[in-house]
C-alpha cells in the first residue's frame, strides 16, 4: 500500500467517469448512430425519410460552418447562402445540360460556393466581431437580391425547376440519402483532419486572440481565406443535392435568412468547435422544424420556435450540449482533487541547445535591430516621437523608462501589431516597418506581452505548437498533436520547466507559469530577436530568478534580447546595453554603470534617491554622491 487509500465512495465515481470508458462509449454511440443513419431509408415512413435527408443537408452545412464559427471564431449568418449558391449552381447547370444527371454538378457547385466564400473571407481582413456578423447578414440578403434581379441566369423570382430523379421508382430516396451520407462523412473527416493540423491550431489561435496570433507567425488572412473556402466546399455540394431533391430552387426559399439561422442554431446547440456537436444539433433542430411546419403551417410558429431557441440557447446553454456534458463529467471526475497549478516547478532542464546554434558575433557587433526616427501618435498624443536606438547582435538590451514613456508602443511597432507614422525599423539591415506581424515573426522576431496573452482555451502543448515558423502549405498540414512538431514543443516546455503541465488548459495556469509558457511559445519560432515585455513583472522572486537564468542561457546559445522592465536590480544584473526612453524618445544609452549615474536618467526616471535605495537593498550597486541622506 502506498499512501493513504482514498475512501471507497469515489471509487465507483472514478470508474464511471474514467476517460477511457467514455471514449469507448462515444465510439459505440457514434457507430450505432452511423449504422442507423446509413440504413435509415429502410424506414417505412416517407416523412421521416424526408426529415432525415433534410437533417443531413443541415448537418453538412453545420459541420462546414463549424470550421469558421467553432474553430476560427467568426459567427456567420451566411452559411445558408452557400447552400443556396450550391443549389443554384447545380440547377443552372442541370437546366443547361438536360440528360445529364444533376449529381454530376455537385463538385462544381462545391467549388463555386467555396470561391464565393473565400471572397467573403477576404472581408474579415478589415472587420471583426459585430461588423462581420452584420456583413454576413447583408451578404445573404444581397445574394437573394441578385438571384431575383439576374433573371437571365436565375429566372428571377419564378425560380428554376429541376428534372425529376431518373432512377427506377423502387430505389426511392436511396441515391439522395447515400450521396448525402457520403458528403457528411467527408465533412466530418475534413473537420477532424483540420483540428489535428497546425492549420487547425492556428484557426483556434485566431479565435482566441487574433492580434497575438499574428505575432507568432500566423498569417490570419490566408488562414481565414482557406477556412472560409473549406467551410463552403461541402456545403455547396450538399446544396446542389438539396436543390435536386426539392426539384425546385427560388430566391426566397434558398436565400432565406432563416436557413442560415437554422445552421447557426445547429452549431451552437450541439457545441461549437466539437466534431460531432454540429451534426447532433442539426438532427435535433430539423425534426423540430418539420414539426413546426406540420403543426403550425410553418410561418409564425417557425419564427417563434427558432427565435425562442436562439434566445434560450444564448442565455442558458451558450456553450452547447457536448461541451456542457464534457464539463460536467470533468467536474465529477476532478471533484476533491487538487489542481496542478499549485504544484512546484520542475528544475530548469539541462539544456542541450534548444535553439538553432548561432555564431556569437565579435564584440563590437553590428546591430541586429535598428530603429531610426520612429514616431507614432494616438490622436494628439505623441506616444513615440523621433525614437532611435539599436540592439547589438548577441546582446541582452534593456529598454527602460517611466510609465507612459512609450516602451510598449515601441514594442508594438517593432513586432508589427501597429504601423509607425514615420521612421524605419531595420532587422539585420532589412527594412521591416511595413511588413505584417507574421512576416516579421517569420524573419525572426518573437515577442511576449506585458499581460500574458496565451490562448486560454488551448492546452499548454497546443499553445506551444501553434506558432508558425514560415508560411507554406507543408507547414499548415503538419500534425499538431503528434509527430515532430509536438516533440519539439515538449523539448521547449522541458527547457522552461513546464513539462508537467503540457495537457493543462493554459487559462488555468498561474500568471508566472503563463509567462514561462509564453516564452516557450516564442522559442518555437526560432527567433533571432526576442522582445520581452516585463518578463519579471508580477511574478515571485524565485520565478524572476528562473526567468533570468533562462534568458542568459538562451543568450549564450546566440539569441538576442530586447526587454522592457521596471525591476531595476533585474535589469542591471542582466542587461547591457540599456536604452532609456522618456516622452517617446531615447534620452540616454549605455552600460548599466553609465546609466545609473546619468543625471538625465536620474531626473526622468530613477529619481535621485535611487542609488541609496539600491544600495540598501542589493548592496551591489556602488554608492554615489548626491543622495538625500
Amino acid at each position, binding site marked *: 500500500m502506498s499512501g493513504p487509500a482514498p475512501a471507497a465512495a469515489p471509487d465507483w465515481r472514478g470508474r464511471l467517469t474514467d476517460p477511457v470508458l467514455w471514449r469507448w462509449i462515444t465510439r459505440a454511440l457514434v457507430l450505432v448512430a452511423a449504422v442507423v443513419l446509413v440504413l435509415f431509408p429502410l424506414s417505412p415512413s416517407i416523412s421521416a425519410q424526408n426529415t432525415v435527408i433534410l437533417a443531413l443537408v443541415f448537418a453538412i452545412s453545420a459541420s462546414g460552418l463549424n470550421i469558421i464559427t467553432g474553430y476560427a471564431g467568426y*459567427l456567420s*449568418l451566411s452559411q445558408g447562402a452557400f447552400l443556396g449558391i450550391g443549389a443554384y449552381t447545380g440547377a443552372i447547370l442541370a437546366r443547361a445540360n438536360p440528360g445529364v444527371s444533376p449529381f454530376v454538378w455537385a463538385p462544381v457547385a462545391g467549388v463555386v460556393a467555396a470561391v464565393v466564400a473565400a471572397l467573403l473571407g477576404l*472581408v474579415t481582413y*478589415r*472587420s471583426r*466581431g*459585430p*461588423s462581420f*456578423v*452584420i*456583413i454576413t*447578414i*447583408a*451578404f445573404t*440578403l*444581397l445574394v437573394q*437580391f441578385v438571384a*431575383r*434581379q439576374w433573371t437571365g441566369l436565375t429566372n428571377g423570382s419564378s425560380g428554376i425547376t429541376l428534372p425529376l430523379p431518373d432512377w427506377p421508382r423502387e430505389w426511392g430516396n436511396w441515391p439522395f440519402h447515400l450521396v448525402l451520407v457520403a458528403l457528411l462523412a467527408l465533412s466530418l473527416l475534413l473537420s477532424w483532419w483540420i483540428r489535428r493540423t497546425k492549420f487547425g491550431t492556428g484557426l483556434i489561435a485566431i479565435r482566441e486572440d487574433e*492580434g*497575438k496570433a499574428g505575432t507568432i507567425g500566423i498569417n490570419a488572412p490566408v488562414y481565414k481565406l482557406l477556412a472560409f473556402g473549406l467551410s463552403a466546399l461541402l456545403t455547396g455540394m450538399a446544396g446542389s443535392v438539396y436543390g435536386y431533391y426539392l426539384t425546385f430552387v427560388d430566391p426566397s426559399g434558398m436565400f432565406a*435568412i*432563416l436557413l442560415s*439561422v437554422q445552421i*447557426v442554431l445547429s452549431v*451552437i446547440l450541439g457545441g461549437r468547435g466539437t466534431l460531432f456537436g454540429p451534426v447532433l444539433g442539426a438532427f435535433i433542430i430539423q425534426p423540430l422544424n418539420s414539426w413546426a411546419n406540420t403543426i403550425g403551417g410553418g*410561418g*409564425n*410558429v*417557425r*419564427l*417563434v*420556435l*427558432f*427565435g*425562442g*431557441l*436562439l*434566445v434560450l440557447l*444564448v*442565455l442558458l446553454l*451558450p456553450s452547447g450540449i457536448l461541451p456542457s456534458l464534457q464539463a460536467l463529467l470533468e467536474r465529477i471526475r476532478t471533484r476533491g482533487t487538487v489542481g496542478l497549478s499549485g504544484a512546484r516547478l520542475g528544475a530548469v532542464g539541462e539544456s542541450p541547445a534548444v535553439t538553432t546554434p548561432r555564431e556569437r558575433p565579435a564584440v563590437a557587433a553590428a546591430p541586429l535591430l535598428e530603429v531610426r526616427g520612429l514616431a507614432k501618435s*494616438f490622436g494628439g498624443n505623441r506616444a513615440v516621437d523621433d525614437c532611435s536606438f539599436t540592439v547589438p547582435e548577441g546582446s541582452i538590451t534593456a529598454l527602460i523608462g517611466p510609465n507612459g514613456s512609450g516602451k*510598449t*508602443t515601441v*514594442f*508594438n511597432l517593432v513586432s508589427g*501589431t*501597429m504601423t509607425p507614422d514615420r521612421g524605419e525599423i531595420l532587422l539585420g539591415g532589412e527594412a521591416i516597418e511595413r511588413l505584417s506581424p507574421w512576416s516579421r515573426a517569420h524573419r525572426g522576431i518573437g515577442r511576449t*506581452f*506585458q*499581460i500574458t*496573452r496565451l490562448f486560454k482555451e488551448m492546452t499548454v502543448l497546443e499553445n506551444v505548437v501553434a506558432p508558425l515558423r514560415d508560411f507554406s502549405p507543408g507547414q499548415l498540414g503538419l500534425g499538431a498533436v503528434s509527430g515532430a512538431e509536438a516533440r519539439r514543443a515538449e523539448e521547449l516546455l522541458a527547457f522552461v520547466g513546464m513539462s508537467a503541465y503540457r495537457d493543462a488548459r493554459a487559462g488555468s495556469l498561474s500568471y508566472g507559469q503563463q509567462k514561462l509558457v509564453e516564452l516557450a511559445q516564442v522559442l518555437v519560432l526560432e527567433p533571432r530577436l526576442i522582445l520581452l*515585455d516585463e518578463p519579471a513583472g508580477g511574478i515571485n522572486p524565485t520565478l524572476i530568478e528562473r526567468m533570468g537564468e533562462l534568458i542568459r542561457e538562451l543568450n549564450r546559445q546566440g539569441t538576442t534580447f530586447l526587454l522592457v522592465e521596471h525591476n531595476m536590480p533585474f535589469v542591471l544584473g542582466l542587461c547591457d546595453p540599456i536604452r532609456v526612453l522618456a516622452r517617446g524618445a531615447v534620452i540616454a544609452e549605455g552600460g548599466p554603470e553609465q546609466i545609473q549615474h546619468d543625471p538625465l536618467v536620474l531626473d526622468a526616471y530613477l529619481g535621485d534617491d535611487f542609488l541609496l535605495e539600491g544600495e540598501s537593498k542589493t548592496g551591489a550597486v556602488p554608492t554615489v554622491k548626491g543622495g538625500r541622506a
Partner: protein
Amino acid sequence: MISLIQTLILGVLVGAVYALLASGLTLIFGVMRVINLAHGAFAILAAFLTYTLWSWLGLDPLLSIPIVTVAMFAVGWVVYQLAIRHVRGRHVSMTVLLTFGISLVLEGVMGFVWGNTSHSVRTDYTDASVQLGPFFLPEAQLIVAIVAVVVIGLLYLVLQRTWAGRAIRAASSNESGALLVGVSVSSVAALTFAIGTATLGAGGAMISVIYPFLPGSHDQWIARLLAIVVLGGLGSLPGAIVGALVIGVGEMLATSYIGASWPVAVPFLVIFVVLVLRPQGLMGTRLREDAVA
C-alpha cells in the same frame, strides 16, 4: 433640374425619419456595445400599436405618440431585464444572436396577433400635398419629418441637460471611469436601452403613416437602419443623422434614376462597402485595440 431638386427634397424628408429611427440604435450601441438587431422589429411593433389605437379609438397617429412612447419604454425595459442584461460583457456575436432571436420571436408574435398582411394608417393628410413653387411636398412626409426633428431635438436635450443624460454619455465614453465616479453602469444601460426603444414610439407612428408595413418588414428596416449607423459610425448620434440623410437621398435617387427595385439593395451595398473600406464610418472613432491591456 427641378425633378432632381424634388428628389433631393423627398430624400431629406425621408432621411429625417430614418435619423429618428436610427438614433435609438446608435445610442444603445454607444453605451453598451450591443447591436440591437431587434430594433427594426420594435419599430414595427410600435407601428402596430399606433395602428391599433387608430383603428379602435380613431386616434390620430401623431396624438398617440406619447402613449406608444411610454409603451415602448416599458417594452425596452422589460426586454433588457429579461434578456440583454445577461449577455453584457459576453462575446459580441452572442449579443447579436440574442437580439436577432428576439426579432424573430417578435415577428412571429406580431404575425399571430395582427396577421401577416400589409397594414397602413390612413389619415386626412395621407394623400394631401403642399405646393411650394414648382415643388410638391407630400403633407404626411412633411409632418413626420418635422416631428422627427422635434423628437431628435428632445433626445439631444435629455442627453445634454439631464443627469441621466450625462450618466449615459459618461458610460458611453468610458465604462470603468463612469463606475468610479458613482454612475451605476448597469442601471444606466437599462435606462439607455429603454430610452433607445422609446424613441421608436414616435418612429413607429411615422412608419405607420407613410409606409405600408407587416411583421416581415422589420428585415428591411433593420437593414436600412444598420446601414445608416454603420455609415455614420457606430455609436455616434450626429453620425446617424448624417448617415440617415445620405441613405434617404441615396434611396430616392436610386428609385428615380435606376429602378424601383433598387432601393432594396442600397442598404446592403452600403453596409458592405463601408465596413470593408472604412469600418469606423463617417464620424465614428476608431478604438485603440492594441496590447496595452
